[in-house]
């Protein structure tokens, strides 16, 4: 098996607000291997984006703080790096693609400038080589006529092209890890499919490890190798994509999968989950999914379920699973 690029262990991230401590990420563990795509799925506000930002240590400080756990990248603990060392990791070793392609590009600089900036920062190259690298990055994202595009401003590109340009910035230094935070949400369905195919292509060429954050199990099925289902700051189930679709164990995972429209089961009604996720400010004592669970038991209300390992690559936190 290929190397583990990133390992997150028992990560806790909190936001300290006027109302109190919001435990956005509350004990999350996962890893991702070279050339592998790990999906983090969950409803909005479950802490998936905060997990991504915690890895890059780009939380909105001082309110957001990593308060516990470990983030290990190829043997180095990221949380122990000083700010300067951490900056050297960003862009070069770990990169990220944000949700909104329209606003992720700086409107006053050309695409080429914005890609070149990363290249100059992280690679000690003569100026004429920088341009070649920029064109290369644009090619990697399959942007047509890259020489011309490099000289254009963001407002001159279409939405899909902008998203690719953001990808080109992220991939310009060939990072080892790419975090993609709902990169397809703002795109049309057809462009979305193209973009996902593009990810697979990039991964094949560069062997980059990808953490793919999404709320859409349909997208997970297309691109992820393994997946972690996140609920209210915790990963409640981790498994390979195949296993999770074939045999979801956690009631929340089951509900999520049932709420994905499937073309082959026409007359089945779509399932929706009743209720709201709990406030991260005041988490319930027992299982955090208990209030919305259809198969809850007495113990669920009183005690948090432990993480149960099933085989090599699978774990679930539910009292129903033994």
């Amino acid at each position, binding site marked *: 098996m290929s190397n583990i690029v990133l390992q997150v262990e028992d990560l806790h991230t*909190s936001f*300290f607000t*006027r109302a109190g401590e919001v435990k956005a990420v509350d004990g999350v563990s996962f890893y991702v291997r070279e050339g592998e795509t790990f999906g983090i799925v969950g409803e909005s506000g479950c802490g998936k984006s905060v997990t991504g930002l915690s890895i890059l240590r780009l939380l909105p*400080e*001082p309110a957001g703080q990593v*308060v516990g756990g470990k983030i290990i990248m190829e043997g180095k603990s990221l949380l*122990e*790096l000083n700010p300067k060392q*951490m900056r050297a990791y960003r862009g070069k070793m770990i990169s990220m693609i944000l949700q909104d392609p329209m606003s992720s590009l700086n409107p006053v600089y050309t695409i080429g400038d914005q890609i070149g900036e990363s290249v100059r920062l992280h690679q000690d190259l003569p100026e004429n080589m920088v341009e070649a690298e920029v064109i290369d990055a644009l090619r990697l994202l399959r942007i047509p006529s890259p020489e011309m595009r490099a000289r254009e401003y963001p407002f001159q590109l279409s939405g899909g092209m902008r998203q690719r340009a953001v990808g080109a910035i992220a991939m310009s230094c060939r990072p080892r890890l790419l975090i993609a935070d709902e990169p397809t949400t703002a795109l049309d369905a057809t462009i979305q499919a193209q973009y996902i195919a593009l990810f697979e292509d990039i991964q094949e060429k560069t062997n980059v490890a990808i953490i793919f954050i999404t709320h859409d199990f349909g997208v997970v099925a297309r691109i992820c190798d393994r997946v972690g289902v996140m609920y209210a700051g915790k990963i409640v189930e981790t498994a390979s994509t195949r296993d999770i679709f074939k045999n979801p164990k956690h009631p929340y995972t089951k509900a999520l999968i049932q709420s994905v429209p499937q073309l082959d089961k026409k007359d089945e009604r779509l399932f929706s989950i009743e209720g709201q996720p709990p406030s991260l400010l005041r988490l319930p004592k027992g299982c955090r999914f208990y209030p919305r669970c259809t198969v809850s038991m007495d113990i669920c209300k009183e005690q948090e379920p432990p993480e149960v390992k099933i085989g090599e690559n699978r774990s679930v936190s539910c009292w129903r699973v033994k």
Partner: protein
Amino acid sequence: MLNTITTTAKTKKKKQYRGISRATRVMRNLALWIPTVVMAFMIVLAIFSPWIAPHDPTVGKITDRYLPPAFMEGGKTDYLLGTDQLGRDILSRLIYGARISLSVSLLAIAITASIGTVLGIIAGYGGGRTDAIVMRVVDVALSFPGLLLAMLLAVAIGPGFWTVVFALSLLGWAGYARMIRGEAMRLSQSDFVAQARVNGASGWRIMTRHIFPNIINSLIVLMTLQVGMMILAEAALSYLGIGISVPTPSWGSMVSDGRANLDNAWWISAFPGAAIGLVVLSGNFLGDWIRDKLDPRLRQL
């Protein structure tokens, strides 16, 4: 900013945040109540000045010239804030000055708001060429120093109460027109306007019944935010001498009276200026508060 994470930082942060929250809550209450009291006080002074003022604001006693405030050596308790170069009571002049300040600025706001709203709605709803013409005029009006027009007016029709009101109105309408036009434009693309059109409503009806009621909040916010600006502008014109003519007391001209007597009677300038500052500060705080309540989108103003 980035920093390394330690567990001790956690508890410290928590305490700090709670402390801030209590302090800010108290501050917020004060920031609402102090300005409200100041403004209410000012309005009472303006309305009842003849009954409140201890002396006649326009007639002074030649023997009581340049008297310092009562709390200073040589001051008389009869003249709490001292007297000016003609022996007039500064406190009484301040009280009467509130009248001028308030009436001029309120009148000017009423006029500018009306003109600006009408033109703004017509431009925003009308669109096309109407919009282009109105907006060009607005651009010019916004970039042109209204002071010069005020000066021209002062030469042409002479200084006085209405000259100031008229000059301030010329200064202010363009800001309203621009703002209201934006709102009207947004609203005229909304579904309920489309619906009204489908139902055969006339342009007039749409502008008055559908667009105007939806603009009122923004309008109120703009008007309250302008109180301070107008009071400052009135004071500046009066300071320059093209405002209310002597001997009627106006805060701006009172500051100007003291300019020549700075070395022996600083209080002639100091108190009216402080009064302007206090009232404008209160007006601005109230305006901010009303904006946050009614229309937080206008935060940039």
